[in-house]
């Protein structure tokens, strides 16, 4: 019972506007000490250490650094503007470019914090400069930054592989189809919505003073090359075995500095300032993780995991009823609980039932992964939402972000349903 009360108290407390990280920590403290005593907090250093030793999370500061250097040297802006121009009169060109860049980042990391923040730094200012609707811009960034979850390599797939005992390679392969479909749907959505309502995302105006149309396209192509080369270095180093996905983020950071040198944008001050800002953003991401780990500690040690277990054990024992209710349960829990907790608390309860019902476990894992990805976007506890808020200009309000992600959440649910109904189409029978 305490767990449920804790959620609602945290919800109300968050609305007061005190920093999210410490609201989580404080609520955990009050409920934890009340129900279990001070000693429960002796677990905190161990939990913190598990983040310290989690070298996969090292991609967070490194990718953020890459993003900030690209942003400070204006190379990222050039990339997006160039791509926007290439799409010419297509409305929403910048949003589509953002989705494409987000997909590339997703293919190089599975750490959502890193991609959402990098995208927020890189493309939000550009979209705002060209009068995009704030909520459309924010929704696009959160959704494409979160693609890192489903597009391999991905942390959630690695965890699910571990929990369900499925080779990670199989999951990575199975996730590709749904990932590509999702990207396609996002782009389609942008095209349709901007066609219906041009105000949302105006085309980049054609400026004659910059030369002829074909010359502008040539310039645009030229501007795309360097940052794209950078992304290719990151991806290429993973595929050729030069670096692990985590290490590739450092290559990206070094590459960004090299680009700055080549384009004569480098200075020691730029380097240090980029580093200092990276520290600030990284601290924001990890403070939330520290607060959230305290919160989930208090939740599970005060018996919350048993409540969840109780509910799930009462799901129906027939295939479609089970799957649909399990998906709804995960989606609802995803509003509140961290995906790692869900993967470890809930999935082990569901797995044996699914297996007994003869459900294809790879398919089941992909459904869960899609579902958990959505949990990053669902207000009010959506990590992607927090991360974007952390780097957005002051004029972007929390509500803009909440409103912006709604259509993308609906798209994800639609794709989820399509995987549910037509597994064969995705190669999972």
């Amino acid at each position: 019972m305490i767990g449920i009360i804790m959620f609602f108290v945290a919800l109300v407390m968050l609305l007061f506007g005190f920093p999210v990280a410490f609201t989580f920590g404080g609520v955990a403290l009050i409920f934890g000490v009340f129900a279990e005593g001070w000693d429960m907090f002796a677990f905190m250093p161990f939990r913190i250490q598990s983040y310290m030793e989690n070298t996969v999370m090292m991609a967070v500061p490194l990718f953020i650094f890459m993003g900030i250097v690209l942003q400070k040297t204006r190379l990222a802006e050039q990339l997006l503007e160039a791509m926007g121009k290439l799409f010419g009169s297509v409305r929403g060109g910048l949003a589509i470019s953002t989705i494409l860049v987000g997909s590339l980042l997703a293919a190089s990391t599975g750490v959502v914090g890193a991609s959402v923040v990098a995208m927020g730094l890189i493309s939000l200012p550009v979209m705002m400069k060209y009068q995009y609707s704030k909520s459309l811009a924010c929704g696009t960034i959160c959704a494409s930054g979160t693609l890192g979850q489903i597009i391999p390599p991905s942390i959630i797939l690695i965890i699910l592989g571990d929990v369900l005992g499925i080779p990670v390679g199989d999951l990575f392969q199975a996730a590709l189809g749904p990932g590509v479909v999702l990207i396609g749907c996002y782009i389609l959505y942008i095209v349709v919505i901007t066609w219906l309502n041009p105000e949302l995302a105006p085309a980049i105006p054609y400026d004659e003073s910059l030369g002829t149309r074909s010359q502008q396209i040539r310039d645009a192509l030229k501007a795309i090359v360097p940052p794209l080369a950078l992304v290719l270095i990151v991806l290429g180093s993973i595929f050729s075995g030069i670096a692990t996905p985590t290490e590739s983020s450092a290559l990206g950071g070094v590459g960004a500095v090299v680009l700055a040198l080549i384009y004569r944008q480098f200075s020691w001050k730029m380097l240090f300032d980029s580093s200092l800002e990276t520290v600030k953003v990284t601290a924001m991401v990890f403070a939330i993780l520290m607060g959230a780990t305290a919160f989930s500690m208090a939740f599970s040690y005060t018996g919350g995991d048993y409540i969840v277990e109780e509910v799930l054990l009462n799901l129906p024992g027939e295939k479609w009823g089970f799957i649909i209710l399990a998906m709804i349960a995960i989606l609802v829990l995803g509003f509140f609980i961290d995906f790692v907790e869900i993967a470890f608390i809930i999935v082990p309860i569901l797995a044996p039932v699914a297996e007994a019902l003869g459900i294809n476990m790879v398919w089941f894992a992909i459904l869960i992964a899609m579902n958990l990805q959505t949990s990053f976007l669902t207000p009010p506890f959506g990590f992607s939402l927090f991360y974007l808020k952390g780097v957005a200009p002051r004029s972007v309000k929390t509500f803009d972000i909440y409103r912006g992600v709604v259509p993308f959440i609906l798209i994800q649910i639609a794709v989820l349903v399509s995987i549910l109904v037509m597994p064969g189409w995705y190669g999972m029978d």
Partner: protein
Amino acid sequence: ADGKVYRMKMAETWNSNFPIFGDAPREMARLAEEMSDGRLKITIDSANKHKAPFGVFDMVRSGQYDLGHSASYYWKGKVPNTLYFTTMPFGMTTPEQYGWFYYGGGQALSDKVYGKFGLRSYPGGNTGNQMGGWFQKEINSVEDLQGLKMRIPGFAGEVMAKLGAKPTNIPSGELFTALERRTIDALEWVGPSLDLRMGFHKIAPYYYTGWHEPATELQFLVNDRSYKRLPADLQVILKSAMKLSAYNMYIQSYHESAENWATMKQEFPNIEVKTFPESVMKAMYKANEELLAEKAAEDPLAKEILDSQAEYMKKARVWTNISDRAYLDSLDNLAD
């Protein structure tokens, strides 16, 4: 016996549904509860709850948990002498090691090491002989080990390093990709019982036989104060449940290895099982001996443990040779 119910909390190093390793503590808790007619209740927190897979030693020591299920060699960085109670390269086989632990003085030495920290350690289940690992390239000579990037942690990694190999840290989630893309050349995990689910057989052609972990024993850690709070009959029940579940895990590992190896071989008939050539084995043996001599010279208790193991193994191996080995050898070529 009074009717009072005693509750103990156990932290395990594994995640909640890790097969085999995680089955042992659950079996132990079930046995303890049933044997005590419900008077001894043990709840298990997995690593995904306490988030400290390698903090089990500290948490049981401080009393945050009464019991732990882990492996002794994980504490080597904290207490060097814990290294010797899991398995040693070129060391005893599982039955030999159980003989040493229960009848050859092993338990007393373990108490000497762990007692200082208010802890007791008991066998927690054996994986049996572990495989030498998955390799992308063949090892035909010691030269082939030069610069070989391999995920092989702990003491065995030190042995390999002495021969010029390069032990490499890769997070377990990235191991598959790292081996597939040849960021590393080789890795060791456990054996077919647990390797199957990692999928390494799909990406690496050579599966080498073991040398470095012939008898990996997990451990039950017990906080001494918690233990002494139990009435005498429950103490006996706890110890019996630990012993029985440890034995059970050994048999389960054997069974799962046989089953999973059959599955792997059926799916991927081209997997080549290889044994390191004699020259490589000799070089590794020598490196191992030198490292052990260093450890013995540094610490008298280490020397005592190593001497005790060496002496016991000498005796036990003679018996192994004229029993199991002689039997298996005598069966060779019978079918031809």
